[in-house]
């Protein structure tokens, strides 16, 4: 019995400023009841702003040295601050069966601290999923670089790291969306995504997709994730599934149906109330299944939660491997070792290793073959959105 109770304990940990905000949003969602939620930050004022969170859940890290003034974008400070709180973290983790860490990479606290938490969770054999927002491109190169490096470092420490590009928000939200709304929406989406991931991973699923599957997909590979959550809330169950599907495709972080098409792996989970029938599950999942491309690895999960009633939650995590990043390195390594080991040389020759450049369509359409318009070495005949890498949903 004790064991059962432990299994259902999920700890959601918001790290840093963005993490705190997401966690606060999460706590206000009705589905989050029964989850343990807490926020860790080095900035006292940021913590104070989280008025909806219980005081006990907020932890100001390393007050003694940082004086509650924040890590100021210094990842080393973030790392040290979280290390000093390892006692608190340990006691929290000891009662937990699944840890979900939420935060925004690019700053100090989350970027530096995530590694500490991840290491701690591993030594205590608590499964951990890390969900991180990656900064908007306009936040500047340094921040993006910090985030990128941070993500890179985490891969070695954790099996399941998901990075979600904030820029994806632009691809779906209409341009008139107010700035505040955009951020609020980003927080809600990330919170929903976290719940979706928990739905997938919680033991007791009818159709199982568990942490092993997830970490198998993500292990040691740098990847980008796009998470879409569709909620169907119609009176009629048949409608709610359809609504959930279309909501899923419109979900801001998913980046449109095109993103699903090009994903390397997709995790789809359907959670519904008691009223959900077999045919509904079959039809919805078949439909969702047909959205990713043929080569994609697909994990399917389905679950019943009586408290949902006629609501249906459909979660899709689209994962795209970042092949430009040689972290996996296995291919490169074989090539290196083959120089030393003559025997394996022929094998290496059979599989020539070629680094591929990222494929971008760089055509100038009707201006192909005409005198180019080149300013500062940039060919302006190539569409602006291609050069600036603005994601476009083509609706195909």
């Amino acid at each position, binding site marked *: 019995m004790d064991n059962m109770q432990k299994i259902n304990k999920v700890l959601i940990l918001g790290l840093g400023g963005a993490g705190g905000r997401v966690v606060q949003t999460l706590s206000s969602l009705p589905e989050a009841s029964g989850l343990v939620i807490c926020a860790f930050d080095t900035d006292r004022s940021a913590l104070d702003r989280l008025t909806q969170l219980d005081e006990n859940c907020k932890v100001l890290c390393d007050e003694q040295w940082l004086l509650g003034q924040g890590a100021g974008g210094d990842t080393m400070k973030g790392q040290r601050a979280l290390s000093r709180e390892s006692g608190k973290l340990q006691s929290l983790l000891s009662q937990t069966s699944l840890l979900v860490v939420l935060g925004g990479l690019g700053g100090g606290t989350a970027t530096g601290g995530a590694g500490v938490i991840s290491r701690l969770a591993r030594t205590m054999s608590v499964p951990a999923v890390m969900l991180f927002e990656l900064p908007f491109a306009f936040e500047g190169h340094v921040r993006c670089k910090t985030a990128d490096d941070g993500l890179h470092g985490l891969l070695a420490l954790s099996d399941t790291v998901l990075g979600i590009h904030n820029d994806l928000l632009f691809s779906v939200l209409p341009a008139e969306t107010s700035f505040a709304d955009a951020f609020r929406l980003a927080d809600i989406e990330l919170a929903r995504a976290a719940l979706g991931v928990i739905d997938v991973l919680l033991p007791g699923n009818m159709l199982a997709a568990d942490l092993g599957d997830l970490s198998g997909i993500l292990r040691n590979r740098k990847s980008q994730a796009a998470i879409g959550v569709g909620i169907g809330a119609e009176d009629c169950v048949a409608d709610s599934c359809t609504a959930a599907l279309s909501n899923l495709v419109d979900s801001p972080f998913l980046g449109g149906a095109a993103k699903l098409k090009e994903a390397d792996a997709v995790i789809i989970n359907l959670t519904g109330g008691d009223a959900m029938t077999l045919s509904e599950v079959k039809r919805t999942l078949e439909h969702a299944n047909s959205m990713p491309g043929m080569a994609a690895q697909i994990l399917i999960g389905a679950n019943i939660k009586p408290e949902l009633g006629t609501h249906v939650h459909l979660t899709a995590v689209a994962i795209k491997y970042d092949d430009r990043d040689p972290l996996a390195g296995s291919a490169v390594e074989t090539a290196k070792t083959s120089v030393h080991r003559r025997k394996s040389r022929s094998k290496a020759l059979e599989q020539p290793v070629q680094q591929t450049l990222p494929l971008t369509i760089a055509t*100038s359409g009707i201006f192909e073959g005409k005198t180019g318009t080149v300013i500062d070495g940039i060919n302006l005949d190539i569409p602006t959105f291609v050069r600036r890498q603005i994601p476009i949903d083509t609706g195909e």
Partner: protein
Amino acid sequence: MFKTHNIITAVELGTSKVCVLIGEYSEEGLSVIGKGETDSSGAVVKGEIASMDLMIEKLIDAIEQADIQSGHELNNSSMFAVAVTGCDMDSLLGEGTAFIQNEERRISEEDIYEAVNNAKVQPLNVDRRLVNSFDAYYLLDGIRRSSQPLNQRASTLKACSHIIHGNSNRLENFAAILSDAGVDYEPEMIFSPVADMFGVLSEDELESGTLLIDFGAGTTEYAVVCNNGVLASGVLTIGFEHVANDLAIGLNLPIDFCRKILEDGTLARLTRENAVHFECRTKPGAVRKIPVESFNRIADARIREIFEIIRQKLGKESFWNNLASGCVLTGGGAEFFRTREIFNQVCDLPARIGKPFDANNVPVGLESPRYSTIFGVLRYAYLLALQNDSRRKNSLGSGLRDKISGFGDAFARTLKNLRSKMTN
């Protein structure tokens, strides 16, 4: 015989259209008596003639249309003017000095001529050719800046002229095509944004400082107009065709379809109605839903970039503080519903859409930013022709003054600029 002097013809060989206007002028002013227009359909790319054969076909077609409409007056034209753009157009600030030698050290008309002429004698490369020049301002004794130096006291007068020049071979194409089409005169050339200035700016805007942007199909030209002269100008060989092209590439649609929805207002209507998807049938049976947002994002990125480049180019020369009248956007691209808003966002200047105007009568069939350039060319030819006439009748100085008094002060300097062109 007298009539022959009162007909003038303007020609624009644009990326989207070839247009010919025939005008008749009298003491009262200018009126348009004939208009011919044909689609360029690929004969012009980025403002320059790509196919001479196709172009000549289109041009003859347009000329005939205009000729018939005007009652066969074309051959009576005393002047042909043609708008030029592309051609690697560039500009420089030329300086020329005159020493005031009379006893009173009073600046006379002749001194101004001398300074202006000196300013125009600039070492251009052999492959460059002067297109237009404008007196930007004068410096008296090398320090005091003035726009009206006449009769002031100084020992030296320095004229600073804005000189627009382009690649001579490429410019020659414009003259050659007209002579191929049967025009016997050597045409007057005018840089497109300068023509726009005559076509769409009010007297107030000519005087107080305006940024003029002609967002055409193949090219985007800009000019900073101040004190009836041009302070800076340039051309960017990116135009509204690029927006259509970007859409075609990004959304995998035929380019003609993209041009159509941009021009006929479909996109504007969908955006106004807050439609989420644009449904199109590319294949029979299959309906494709393209988010309207995708169209707008691609178009916005391109238009924004064009304005950013212009802003950056002008920013180097710090003209932004001189733009009291804000900006006038014209050309076919100005009709697109997002253009002005994007301009406001990028440049933070008030903007209006410029259309051809006439103090007496708005020319029928030309009430669109598309016709700014061609109408400007006609007005330029008109002012030039007036100048010719007055020179023919009178001695230079007095005749000029008579004409000026008939026009109002605002055009005085413009005419002076034109005069300096003719003494060239």
